[in-house]
């Protein structure tokens, strides 16, 4: 069973990398969370009945671990001010980094929605994973897009 599990995680580990990237800022914190997610997946693996897709199950455990379970340190609360400070550093992909930093200022629930949205999950699947209604997923995504637009182009709101 252990080998089978390692094989599955090895194939789908990109999901864990994505969740970790969204929910943690530093490489050390990301490494810690990655380990914790793999550990929790291993513990939950015997209960996995195969009803849901394996990728959905991995996402479920990874998001639940990142938000509800894992608390090594106090998570810092981001603000638009921290975004501006961070932008002062030079980057190879400034546009992409700006967007990632803007995403990092979202709250935990919004991060979960955007993570699943970026992986092309349907509204229905996102709703099932998060325990909210399909229409609420649509509302949340709309709000997130507005928020990100405002964060990336603060002047657009002034008109």
């Amino acid at each position, binding site marked *: 069973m252990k080998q089978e599990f*390692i094989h599955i995680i090895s194939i789908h580990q990109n999901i864990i990398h994505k969740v970790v990237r969204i929910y943690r800022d530093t490489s050390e914190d990301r490494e810690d969370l990655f*380990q914790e997610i793999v550990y929790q997946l291993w513990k939950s693996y015997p209960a996995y009945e195969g009803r849901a897709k394996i990728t959905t199950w991995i996402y479920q455990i990874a998001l639940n671990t990142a938000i509800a*379970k894992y608390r090594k340190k106090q998570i810092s609360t981001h603000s638009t001010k921290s975004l501006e400070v961070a932008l002062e550093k030079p980057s190879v992909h400034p546009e*992409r980094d700006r967007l990632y930093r803007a995403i990092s200022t979202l709250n935990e629930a919004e991060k979960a929605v955007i993570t699943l949205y970026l992986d092309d999950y349907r509204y229905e699947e996102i709703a099932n994973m998060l*325990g909210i209604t399909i229409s609420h997923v649509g509302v949340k995504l709309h709000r997130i897009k507005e928020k990100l637009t405002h964060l990336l182009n603060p002047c657009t709101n002034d008109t």
Partner: protein
Amino acid sequence: MTLDELKLDWQQSVAPKSDTELQQMISQKTSSVFYRTKLKTIIETIALIIFPVVFLTGLDAKRNEDWVNILVILTAAVGIANNLWLYHGLSAEHLNTNLKESLLKVKRKLQGQILFAVVFSSLLSGSVFLFFFFRTPFILEKIGALILLLVVGIIIRTSAEVWRWQKLNRYIDQCLFALIH
């Protein structure tokens, strides 16, 4: 760059972990707050078992009165029961559900933890106080001060614990609020 453009970047693979690294991860100890509490629970339970055994089997030179023994056993029993309940609660899995349900389960667990911490602390400090009150002749002021210090110490320890759990509870509330609204 828009969110749709980011989707392409999102799919790009980062440095993958090797099978050996993954294998190490599943055999490593977790660093979650629940794991640390579980560890503390085990250590406390062992201490609570050893304490009455040592006390009742004659290391104390004088023969203890019945009510003293009963109080010691009662305190230890309350402590052990509390820890077993806590351990059971902390071991229960709650990650195989949707995020909202998972958060609600964590919240219920935290509320139970806070309630038991308060009840256990009250019983323990009450027992300690009664034990010394009946057993020690309060001739010296120093002994009285020491007893009070012990009781206050238990209360401070529990308050710190409750404060920590409540902080986590507030965080879960924030997440739930953000998810539902």
